[in-house]
């Protein structure tokens, strides 16, 4: 009798614990749409028993606006870009990951373990990274394309056929690289020159389009355009005879990162999610799907062959440095805003 009682109590306890564990097993992810394959999400749930609830945004800034207008406390993690991580950190929106909380932290590639936007990786882990530069249609122009002159001081064949991204961050960063001045400089003469250069360059541009950056190259509406590396490869796959440029003046690197948000309702599960993405096998599955690059060590041998040999992933010798977009200080940002409005008025 006593034995029966003991075992039934034990069974009851076990069931209670098990259901309690399943009851709080969810993680709320704020993510870009279609940036994570369903198979990977399912794998995470199968491995850990945690349910993934995903909400989506379509730009870094939209995510920031949404969180600022009251989204804090509802999401566990989100996936901002490089400069946005820094912005969120200074706004106190990110939670700190203590030493040892992330079991797989050591898998982060050495080159991405201590980036300028999150020293020591206290708030984030790498998700995917790539570059932003521009692509030129080789049917229209056959000269040297590894120079930012293509965008800002274009040859005759390309004038009036250039698309730039409709994004202040990317355009200003590229412009700064072109002029050889520091990003977010507060030097007045440099800023004035930047303003003037952009206004005169605009006359050769046909449009500011981010969403259709790939389409305009494929359809021929533009013969050259700023574009992300992944999209450039896709444009070529769709038949556009485009070549991706690595200007000597430098070009832009971007990195999307998974960050732990402050007041995360399921902090434990959030950390497990981040850990999951740092396992080389999972990172490789992600990378093969998104076709960008991973920040995790040990992924290379697991990648698809085609991905490894993409020209977009292999800059030529003499290419300039890839730099992240910097978030400017308030005073400089105000000037940048004025310049951008001048450009678009």
């Amino acid at each position, binding site marked *: 009798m006593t034995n029966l009682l003991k075992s039934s109590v034990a069974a009851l306890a076990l069931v209670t614990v098990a259901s309690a564990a399943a009851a709080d097993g969810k993680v*709320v992810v*704020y993510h870009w*749409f279609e940036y994570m394959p*369903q198979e990977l999400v399912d794998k995470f749930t199968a491995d850990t028993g945690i349910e993934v609830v995903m*909400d989506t945004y379509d730009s870094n800034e939209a995510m920031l606006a*949404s969180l600022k*207008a009251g989204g804090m406390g509802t999401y566990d993690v989100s996936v901002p870009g490089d400069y946005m991580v820094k912005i969120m950190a200074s706004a106190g929106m990110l939670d700190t990951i203590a030493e040892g909380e992330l079991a797989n932290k050591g898998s982060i590639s050495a080159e991405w373990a201590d980036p300028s936007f999150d020293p020591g990786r206290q708030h984030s882990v790498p998700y995917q990274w790539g570059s932003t530069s521009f692509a030129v249609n080789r049917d229209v122009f056959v000269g040297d394309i590894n120079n930012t002159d293509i965008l800002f001081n274009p040859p005759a064949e390309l004038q009036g056929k250039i698309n730039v991204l409709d994004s202040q961050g990317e355009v200003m960063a590229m412009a700064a690289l072109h002029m050889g001045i520091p990003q977010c400089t507060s030097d007045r003469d440099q800023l004035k020159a930047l303003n003037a250069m952009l206004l005169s360059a605009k006359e050769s541009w046909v449009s500011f389009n981010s969403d259709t950056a790939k*389409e305009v190259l494929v359809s021929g509406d533009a013969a050259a355009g700023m574009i992300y590396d992944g999209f450039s490869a*896709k444009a070529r796959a*769709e038949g556009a005879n485009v070549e991706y440029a690595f200007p000597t003046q430098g070009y832009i690197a971007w990195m999307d990162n998974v960050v732990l948000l402050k007041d995360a309702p399921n902090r434990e599960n959030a950390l497990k999610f981040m850990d999951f993405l740092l396992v080389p096998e999972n990172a490789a599955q992600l990378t093969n799907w998104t076709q960008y690059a991973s920040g995790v060590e040990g992924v290379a041998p697991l990648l698809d062959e085609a991905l490894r040999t993409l020209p977009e992933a292999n800059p030529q010798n003499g290419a300039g440095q890839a730099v992240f977009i910097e978030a400017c200080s308030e005073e400089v940002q105000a000037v940048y805003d004025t310049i951008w409005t001048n450009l678009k008025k």
Partner: protein
Amino acid sequence: MRRSKYDIKSLPGFFGITILCLFILYAPLVVVTVYSLNDSNSITNWEGVSLRWYVDVFSGHESQKFKIAAWNSFTIAIIAATVATTIATLAATAMVRGGKFKLRTVSFGLISLPLMVPEIVLAVATLIFFNSVGFTRGYATILIAHIAFCIPFAYLPISARMQGIDDSYEQAAQDLYATKRQAFTRILLPMMIPGIISGYLLAFIVSLDDFIITNFVKGAGVETLPTAIFGSVKQGIKPNIMAISTMLLGVSVILVTISYFVSKTDNKK
């Protein structure tokens, strides 16, 4: 014949313009349909006919999300249009048949307010409001916001219609001892039907297509069709979106055909 020369019902060129109008409206849809059958990943290069995108919509990895998003969009649109049209009809009755009163112009201003405020502003303002009240964002917040901006869209056709209806019918009914309520429901309302339907349709479309406001006030995990499509476009426009759009078109064509036959039998009575 004298009739055709003075028959105002058939004005020259109006038929032609109507056809032109329909052509302009439908031409891009033809493009959408044609490209939904495109065999390649691109929306600009043609690579042969294929039904694979339709298969993808139902079984591809994003299919579940799109299905739920479509369900959300349609249910929200139906509920929002219904509530908005009801509120708008009542309001129009008061404004058009309520005589002159001091707050009339102000009322009109309030009713058209959602229309005049830029969507982005209404979006952020509504979000801030919900948060300060502590309303958790989700399906309900989307619905509430949609009803609000649907009201002016429903109101304007209804009010325009009502203004064109002579009130002598209702006066006559009351002379015959009908109560105000009977005059309203038995006389005015039936004559209002085309206006109410116009208002309902407008509200429905507006709700179905809304992106900006929905994007800001939706909660985690809740997508509507526009937010799902917009988000998907950020990763490059793929023909599966074209397939979804074509299917939506198909659904509405079927609905129209059904309603046409329904109205045919109705008139036989």
